[in-house]
């Protein structure tokens, strides 16, 4: 019986897809009478079904060797593309995480989208995302991972562009699509280049191939860099990180998904590709470099934001940077564990602030204050999420961060420094948000702020409960180190950085004696981080400028040179007709002249050989 669940695991994405299709009839243009709510209920039910199915499947697959299924998708000439599925405890565990978080986000959306008519579209897109992510995690083929990443890129575009009558939403959706698309396209180059080298797109066979592969280091480097580029865009790493900031224009329940799992899709592919990427030491260095720069940079930017959603979105980039570092240093297990603990913590944070935004309208951190006494549940959830996000023993991310630092300690000690710094910065940032929202005195926007609806609070508290149980779960799965094995040389600085970050932040922002808003002495530095290192301007003067210029030039070339040459032929014909008609002068004598000239010419041409010989005849 239980075996059946694990063998039919491929049904899990289909539940969501069915939900996506079933939701559509409640679009306002089709069912005009009864309102859009059934779309949401159906999808929540389908997600619940998928979640329960995955749970049973996990029970069946637990402590079993992974199973592999393969479906022939396309067979043409010598190319054979198969859709491979891996059923292991990791993939099914990821399915549970995906469907579980989706379930929470969909229940959350039932409350959050109370006053919205677009449920059909919203829930269809959420379900499309769920289906895509479920397919991605069980899919064991790089080719189909790419296919799904592209579908999810399109889904991101549509989901961010949900309220498309707002101009910022339209530009945000555009940037999200194009930025992620660029990464995906470079990934496609890598995917296509990999087939002739490895002869397969199956992750398992790729890993086997990579152990014995001997390829030119230059090719390995280029290939690995192309394979990194896709996840680079997906995970909102520098320099392709602006889209995540602008994606915060989308609806909040979608943000839960985006900040927790969608950005993790890139990391998932990156982790799966780790054996191939390990072929090139340059690629590992690049990954570590990008990860470190993003983690530190985004950590600093997050502190300088005044928009509460954007502040969290930069923490997302920072943590994805840590995943990059983990993969760059060949710790794929640790990276997976970090994704797991991070996703749960970030989900709680986003849900908590979503509830705050829902009935305080503003997203401006400087307009908040004094919510602790009236919003205790949101506040406690936020605290638990924040504590799970940073290295705060015994909660989730402490273990993954410590494990990562432990692995790095002997090989890359300076990366432990990065880890500690990012942890401290994130602790500072999340505590700053907490202090500004929940601490201090109420401001005009927050004077009357009741706790949100049950459907906003319920998923938040469930997630909080789960986050509190994560250490127990990890212990149950034997993923926690023994106390005596715990590397205190790295664990202590991590915890200290958490305490320093959080304590410093609380001291600054909960202290009435320090004037708010905080002004850094060099205003330029504060602005530099507040405006996200001026990335929008950077894009505008580099890529956008160059592409714009080139397209202008090509347009000009096409408009004036290519078209012009053809038009010139027409013009010359017209002009010659217009000018040659003056040969018809109306003078009879002129006609005589032309006849005579023609005759002379013709006779001259015809007789020329004879005339030239004539000379010879006469002369002797």
């Amino acid at each position, binding site marked *: 019986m239980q075996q059946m669940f694990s063998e039919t695991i491929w049904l899990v994405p289909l539940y969501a897809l069915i939900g996506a299709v079933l939701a559509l009839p409640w679009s306002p243009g089709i069912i005009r009478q009864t309102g859009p709510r059934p779309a949401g209920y159906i999808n929540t039910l389908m997600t619940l079904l998928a979640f329960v199915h995955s749970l049973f499947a996990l029970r069946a697959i637990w402590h079993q060797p992974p199973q592999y299924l393969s479906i022939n998708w396309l067979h043409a000439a010598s190319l054979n593309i198969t859709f491979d599925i891996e059923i292991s405890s990791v993939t099914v565990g990821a399915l549970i995480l995906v469907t579980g978080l989706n379930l929470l986000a969909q229940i959350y959306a039932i409350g959050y989208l109370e006053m919205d008519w677009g449920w059909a579209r919203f829930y269809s897109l959420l379900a499309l995302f769920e289906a895509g992510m479920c397919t991605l995690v069980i899919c064991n083929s790089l080719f189909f991972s790419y296919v799904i990443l592209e579908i999810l890129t399109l889904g991101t575009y549509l989901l961010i562009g949900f309220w498309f009558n707002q101009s910022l939403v339209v530009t945000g959706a555009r940037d999200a699509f194009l930025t992620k698309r660029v990464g995906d396209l470079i990934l496609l180059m890598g995917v296509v280049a990999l087939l002739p080298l490895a002869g397969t797109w199956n992750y398992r066979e790729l890993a086997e191939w990579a152990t014995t592969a001997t390829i030119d280091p230059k090719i390995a480097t280029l290939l690995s860099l192309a394979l990194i580029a896709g996840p680079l865009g997906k995970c909102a790493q520098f320099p392709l990180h602006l889209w995540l900031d602008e994606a915060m224009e989308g609806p909040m329940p979608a943000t839960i998904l985006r900040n927790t799992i969608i950005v993790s899709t890139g990391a998932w592919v990156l982790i799966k590709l780790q054996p191939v990427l390990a072929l090139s030491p340059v690629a590992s260095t690049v990954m570590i470099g990008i990860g470190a720069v993003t983690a530190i940079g985004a950590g600093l930017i997050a502190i300088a934001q005044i928009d509460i959603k954007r502040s969290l979105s930069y923490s997302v980039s920072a943590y994805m940077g840590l995943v990059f570092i983990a993969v760059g240093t060949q710790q794929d297990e640790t990276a997976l564990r970090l994704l797991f603990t991070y996703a749960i913590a970030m989900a709680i944070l986003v849900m908590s602030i979503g509830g705050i935004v829902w009935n305080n309208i503003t997203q401006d951190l400087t307009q908040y204050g004094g919510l602790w006494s009236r919003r205790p549940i949101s506040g406690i959830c936020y605290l638990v999420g924040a504590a799970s996000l940073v290295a705060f023993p015994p909660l989730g991310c402490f273990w993954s961060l410590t494990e990562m630092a432990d692995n790095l300690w002997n090989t890359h000690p300076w990366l432990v420094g990065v880890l500690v710094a990012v942890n401290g910065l994130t602790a500072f940032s999340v505590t700053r948000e907490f202090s500004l929202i929940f601490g201090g005195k109420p401001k005009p926007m927050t004077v009357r702020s009741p706790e949100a609806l049950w459907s906003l609070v319920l998923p938040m508290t469930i997630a909080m409960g789960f986050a509190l149980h994560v250490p127990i779960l990890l212990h149950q799965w034997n993923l926690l180190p023994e106390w005596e094995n715990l590397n205190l040389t790295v664990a202590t600085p991590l915890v200290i950085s958490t305490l320093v970050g959080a304590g410093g932040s609380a001291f600054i922002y909960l202290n009435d004696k320090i004037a708010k808003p905080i002004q850094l002495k060099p205003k330029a530095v504060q602005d530099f981080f507040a405006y996200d290192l001026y990335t929008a301007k950077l894009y505008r003067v580099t890529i956008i400028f160059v592409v714009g210029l080139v397209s202008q030039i090509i347009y000009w070339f096409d408009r004036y040179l290519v078209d012009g040459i053809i038009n010139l032929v027409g013009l010359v014909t017209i002009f010659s007709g217009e000018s040659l*008609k*003056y040969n*018809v*002068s*109306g*003078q*009879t*004598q002129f006609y*005589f*002249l032309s006849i*005579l000239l023609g005759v002379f010419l013709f006779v001259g041409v015809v007789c020329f050989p004879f005339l030239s010989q004539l000379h010879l005849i006469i002369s002797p």
Partner: protein
Amino acid sequence: MQLQYCLILAAALFCIGIYGLITSRNAVRVLMSIELMLNAVNLNLMGFSNFLDPSAIKGQIFTIFVITVAAAEAAVGLAIILAIYRNRETVDMEQFNLLKW
């Protein structure tokens, strides 16, 4: 007396005729130039029949035909000039440029 001189004279006469044909403004003088050209042709025919075909003298028969046809052509030509003159009251060739582009 040689054939060449005869031909060169005829050619010269023909060229004079062409010059007159193309440059004259008076329509009658154009007809006169045409007569000159026809006479140049006749000279050619006569010269060839004299020097190359003295027995059969086919050229002389040709000449007679050309003179006859030239007379007829001159008659028709003058009639046309008269017809134009009646309408336009001039024989200036440069006034007859209605049929242009």
